[in-house]
């Protein structure tokens, strides 16, 4: 016989200011199922949980309903309270009288009525709930890291140092990501390559890390602890095992017109090339769109000069499946194409470049070897205007969000510029300067005060190309309230941070949520910053939102610590809320197996006939088979027909 204990939470005033809690308790006490009813200010607090434990001991209740906030918030809290008293944790149900009632209902009378109704349904429901035992499943204690930028490298290194195997999958021919493209970093002006390359090499040499470059994730099956991931390696036409990285092929290749991605489109490279001098691995890749051997079956010089015979023209994409227990997504960001800002001449005027292109122009590994020259005529720019918020904070044209890193990298750019051209003048057109990090504000002040950079508050209206090759930048100075124009030799647009083009496709493969802009959504914005709605999938770096290097590294380490604590357990505890077939009722039509997304339903012999059987380790508890079964032979534990139909009672 069910003896239900009912506990109504005030949640401070969050519930009690709208709902007459005392009336709820008095009304529900009269229900025959209820053996104990009580109210308390904060049920989630220790004394609140003690109330439940005491009622289990003294009043011999054997089912519990807590009317409080959303079960998404505190159901595990109360399940634990039951478990500590030896009561099965699945014998508690929550009535969501905060999110679904007090917070969304204006009239206190209606709110109280609704609260009574909501709790009454859960009392009816909890009577039908059965005790369930957690399922233990074995797990693969290896991790997959998607993306070899600084966040992914950090996550991989930390997991590998924790003595777990890591497979690091990177789309491009080298790890290093955006950070490898940067010249110096704010706010210390550390050389980006100098601090990054040791980490790249460490990752490459770590016995627990397997780096797979030129590879992409194509399919993700399974669940936390037991993911099956299909990874495809693109055809690179170079045998990485044989290649010694001498780069003779790159020097001898006659096709030197391939736009250089590493230099953000500035300059060209050969059709067979190592992406940049410090690349890890230092193995070249042939671009099949430009290679004369692959397009016209001519040339083949690289194969002839290669001392290691590493060039293989008949290479083809290769897929294989890897088994991992956890996945860290660190796919990073891309810079927005400023072409939509036609008034700025982005992608049209050769000397109107993006922040990343400026970064390459001042880099010693860049297209000019570190001499700052205009892309159009090679002259040293004596006046440069830096335009902030191009695509950020501009809902009408691109994105509502702030890209976060541009204020700081623009301040850095002005300093780098002054270090290259000491007699030059830098202007910055800004809306607000956002510099909240440690020593960030001081860094911006240094640019303004020591480098004499002129900061003009206002948005640039138009950029016009003049006869003399200069660019007239029409802007305003809202602090003095007048329109101004500057004749500049070069303009740098701080183009917005955007998610990768294929971000949504990967999110759908992984079953993780993403926001309207395409950035991945964390499980809780404050308390679960690296977890996702899918157990075992974690986030790191700018794929979750615009982020600078320190924040990306922090998230990389945070995601790694989540992976390691997951792997610290021997087996994985899986929710017992899965589907079960009653073989006596099953007709063996196996329609259920057609709708099962996890191939968890198999045929088995029962007496003299074939029936369906659900593999507990594979079932994820979605219930698609339950709704499909014509004979009602399948029950979903925790969401059975009995439980759900008790909730579909008329509203009072």
């Amino acid at each position, binding site marked *: 016989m069910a003896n239900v204990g009912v506990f109504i939470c005030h949640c401070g005033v969050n519930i009690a200011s709208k709902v007459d809690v005392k009336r709820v308790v008095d009304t529900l006490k009269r229900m025959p199922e209820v053996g104990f009813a009580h109210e308390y200010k904060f049920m989630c607090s220790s004394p609140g949980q003690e109330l439940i434990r005491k009622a289990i001991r003294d009043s011999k209740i054997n089912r519990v309903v807590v009317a409080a906030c959303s079960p998404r918030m505190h159901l595990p809290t109360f399940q634990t309270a039951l478990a500590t008293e030896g009561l099965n944790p699945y014998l508690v149900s929550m009535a969501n009288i905060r999110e679904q009632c007090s917070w*969304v209902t204006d009239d206190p009378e209606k709110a109280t009525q609704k609260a009574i109704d909501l709790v009454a349904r859960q009392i009816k429901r909890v009577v039908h709930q059965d005790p369930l035992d957690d399922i233990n499943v074995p797990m693969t204690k290896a991790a997959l890291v998607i993306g070899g930028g600084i966040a992914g490298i950090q996550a991989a290194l930390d997991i590998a140092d924790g003595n777990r195997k890591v497979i690091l999958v990177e789309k491009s021919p080298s790890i290093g990501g955006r950070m490898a493209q940067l010249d110096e970093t704010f706010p210390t002006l550390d050389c980006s390559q100098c601090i990054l390359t040791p980490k790249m090499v460490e990752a490459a040499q770590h016995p627990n890390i397997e780096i797979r470059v030129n590879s992409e994730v194509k399919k993700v099956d399974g669940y936390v602890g037991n993911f099956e991931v299909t990874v495809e390696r693109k055809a690179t036409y170079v045998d990485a095992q044989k290649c010694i990285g001498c780069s003779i092929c790159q020097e001898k290749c006659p096709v030197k017109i391939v736009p250089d991605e590493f230099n953000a489109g500035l300059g060209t490279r050969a059709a067979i090339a190592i992406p940049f001098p410090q690349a890890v691995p230092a193995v070249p890749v042939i671009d099949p769109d430009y290679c004369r051997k692959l397009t016209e079956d001519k040339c083949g010089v690289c194969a002839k000069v290669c001392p290691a015979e590493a060039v293989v023209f008949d290479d083809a994409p290769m897929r294989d499946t890897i088994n991992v227990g956890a996945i860290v997504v660190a796919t990073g960001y891309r810079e927005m194409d400023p072409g939509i800002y036609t008034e700025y001449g982005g992608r049209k005027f050769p000397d109107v470049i993006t922040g990343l292109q400026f970064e390459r122009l001042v880099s010693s590994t860049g297209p000019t070897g570190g001499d700052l020259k205009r892309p159009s005529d090679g002259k040293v720019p004596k006046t440069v205007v830096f335009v902030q918020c191009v695509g950020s904070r501009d809902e009408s044209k691109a994105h509502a969000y702030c890209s976060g890193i541009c204020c700081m990298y623009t301040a850095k750019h002005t300093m780098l510029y002054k270090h290259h051209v000491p007699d030059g003048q830098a202007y910055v057109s800004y809306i607000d300067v956002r510099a909240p990090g440690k020593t960030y504000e001081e860094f911006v002040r240094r640019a303004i005060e020591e480098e004499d950079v002129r900061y003009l508050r206002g948005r640039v209206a138009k950029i016009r190309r003049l006869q003399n090759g200069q660019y007239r930048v029409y802007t305003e100075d809202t602090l003095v309230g007048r329109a101004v124009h500057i004749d500049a030799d070069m303009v740098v647009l701080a183009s917005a941070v955007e998610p990768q083009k294929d971000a949504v496709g990967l999110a759908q493969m992984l079953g993780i949520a993403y926001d309207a802009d395409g950035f991945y*959504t964390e499980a809780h914005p404050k308390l679960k910053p690296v977890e996702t709605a*899918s157990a075992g999938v974690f986030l790191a770096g700018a794929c979750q939102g615009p982020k600078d290097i320190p924040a990306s590294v922090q998230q990389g380490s945070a995601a790694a610590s989540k992976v390691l604590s997951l792997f610290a357990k021997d087996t994985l505890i899986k929710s017992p809320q899965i589907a079960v077939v009653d073989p006596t009722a099953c007709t063996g039509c196996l329609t259920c197996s057609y709708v099962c997304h996890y191939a968890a339903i198999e045929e088995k012999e029962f007496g003299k006939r074939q029936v369906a059987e659900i593999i507990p380790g594979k079932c994820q508890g979605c219930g698609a088979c339950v709704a499909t079964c014509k004979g009602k032979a399948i029950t979903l534990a925790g969401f059975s027909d009995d439980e759900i139909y008790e909730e*579909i009672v008329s509203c009072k």
Partner: protein
Amino acid sequence: MQIDKEPKILAILCKWCSYAGADLAGTSRFAYPANVRIIQVPCSGRVDPVMIFKAFVEGYDGVMVSGCHPGDCHYGTGNYHARRRMAVARRLLQFVGVHPERMHFTWISAAEGKKFAEVCGQFTDKLKMLSGSEKTLARKELAT
């Protein structure tokens, strides 16, 4: 049925997207009609048309089923199964004499708290119209 009576709505929401969206409506304090009752299911694919019929038998004026947006289902394809099933359920409703507009199938993500509150409000308004003059509305729809 009377026009001024507040319609009763049963909202069957998947745990991953739409139930979280309803939670967000609460956290954001987007008020919606008090006669909405929410049931959590793991996935919209779990929704059996019998649940919808039971709701009408119990006296609900409208039933809303919501899952994750296409492509975003936590279980891969559950919302597609739901979409097909609900299309059939709607025809069956019509056959037994319940106006098919009394069932509303939609997608609400965990980030769409505002949408949840708006859908509840709009559905309530529609049900009020239906309760008043189901036939008039049907005629209007035929005319357009």
